[in-house]
């Protein structure tokens, strides 16, 4: 078995998050792998549909829940289209976990603010569940999730669950025009909602994921609230093939997204050339 050979996994559940986004729960077919597979929040993997190819996303489930992994993806290209066509019981491939992770151990005892736009909630959700499953280790937990429209909000069941928890402050928002008549959440872009939510920056960490434009306008808001750039985390994506630092295509200047990332601080991003 070489390092490019994936483990076999079976689709155990498929959940339609939005009209074009789906979550798959995957269970390892090899008992030993299922027992021993461990990862850290923020790591990614290479998912494959045999005959179509491989595709890179973060693991969207929490490391605290073992025996399976989940991924959420938008159907954009060849592999994600094939993944969408898989039925429960179909087999596919997975190799990983790769890359670095969110430094949750450093965040213990602190407040955490999760800010996610659209499908960007997938990598954040992994950390959210990790934190909520070990809730006593952390102080205030704030979740801000925005999407273009109500239909585009992902993990709706979980948003409801988080909203009902007394130990989570949840803000959901949709872009102006994306609301429905019975929409109870906020209307407005994520940066504005972050400003409104005004999470306290003292002893706090922010984890921000979403489209580049959202990140671009959210970072200044966080900094104004007092979050230092080295306490703001995000994850990057780039086209990858190997996931392990060999195929040579995911680098942004000197930094390999697959090896040095995918998790970076805003301070690290500011130092990178604008090639992503």
């Amino acid at each position, binding site marked *: 078995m070489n390092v490019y050979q994936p483990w076999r996994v079976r689709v155990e559940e498929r959940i339609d998050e939005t009209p074009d986004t789906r979550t798959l729960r995957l269970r390892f077919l090899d008992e030993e792998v299922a027992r021993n597979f461990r990862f850290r929040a923020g790591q990614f993997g290479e998912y494959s549909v045999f005959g179509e190819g491989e595709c890179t996303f973060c693991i969207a489930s929490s490391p605290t829940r073992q025996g399976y992994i989940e991924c959420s993806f938008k159907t954009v*290209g*060849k592999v994600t289209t094939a993944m969408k066509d898989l039925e429960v019981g179909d087999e596919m491939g997975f190799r990983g976990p790769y890359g670095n992770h969110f430094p949750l151990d450093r965040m213990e005892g602190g407040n955490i603010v999760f800010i996610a736009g659209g499908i960007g909630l997938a990598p954040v959700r992994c950390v959210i569940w990790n934190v909520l499953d070990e809730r006593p280790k952390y102080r205030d937990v704030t979740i801000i999730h925005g999407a273009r429209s109500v239909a585009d909000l992902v993990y709706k069941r979980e948003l409801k669950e988080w909203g009902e928890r007394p130990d989570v402050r949840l803000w959901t928002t949709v872009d102006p025009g994306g609301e429905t008549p019975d929409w109870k959440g906020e209307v407005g872009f994520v940066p504005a909602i972050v400003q409104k939510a005004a999470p306290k920056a003292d002893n706090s960490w922010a984890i921000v994921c979403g489209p580049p434009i959202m990140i671009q306008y959210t970072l200044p808001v966080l900094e104004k609230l007092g979050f230092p750039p080295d306490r703001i985390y995000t994850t990057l994506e780039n086209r990858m093939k190997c996931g392990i630092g060999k195929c040579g295509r995911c680098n942004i200047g000197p930094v390999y997204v697959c090896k040095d990332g995918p998790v970076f601080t805003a301070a690290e991003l500011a130092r990178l050339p604008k090639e992503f």
Partner: protein
Amino acid sequence: MTELRDLARRLLEEGTVQAVLGWEEGPRGARPVFVRQPAEADRLIFDPRCVHNLAAFLSPRRPHLKTLGRVAVCVKPCDAKAVAGLIRESQRTREEVVLIGLRCGGVLPDPESREALSAETVADRCRGCPDREPRLADHLVGAPAEGFPGPSRRQQKVEELLALSPDDRWRFWQQELSRCVRCHACRQVCPLCFCDQCIADKSRPRWVESSAHGRGNLAWHISRAMHLAGRCVDCGECERVCPGGIPLGLLTRRVARTVGERFGWRPSDDPAVPSPVGTWRPEDPQEFIL
């Protein structure tokens, strides 16, 4: 040379163009150069080492060249045919470019060649080339030159191969194509490979496998030759660039012969002549159809 440099300088000074694409002396012989300042016009050269078909830079696949503004391009007769091809196929308008035509008596095989031009040293593709000066040009410079008689060795090789059995041809090509690494350099340098997205880069569905195995290589070279039917101007750049030294010109020559014999097509520097693959005649020969 003075004539060329003076013209380039004038075009830049007048503001007719913002850049002149020609050749300069590089570390390893002649090479393409974009002259953007009148003072740099003296970098331009033209001699038999200027083998590059600069029309390739006009292909719409090179968006970064748009940032240069209007460009004057130096063209030999074969390069002018490539420009005509781009105009014929609506990739460029005639008004977009200024063409500096260069009288040509053939080129050497390589930008680094040091020999004097002679019947022995001339690039094979120039043997039998009937064109001494491009008609598609806004300016014409250079001294009248004599050409060299054909047939080219490549043309002879096509005939030799045609005399073999299909199985022997199969073996010949498998041997040659085994050196293909699927870098697609042949496509990149080709002025007439102008597709925005190449069939070889399409993955949904994947018509041409990207692996450099026998199957993928054969599909690629069939595709490439087919797509160049009625387009190839026989500038030989594909063959010159190939890092495996594959005689790619044999394939395009074979196709050119078919197109010539059946449809009366010759590469032309007249953009108004219709392309042989975009047109048809009711009386086209069809002896091969049951």
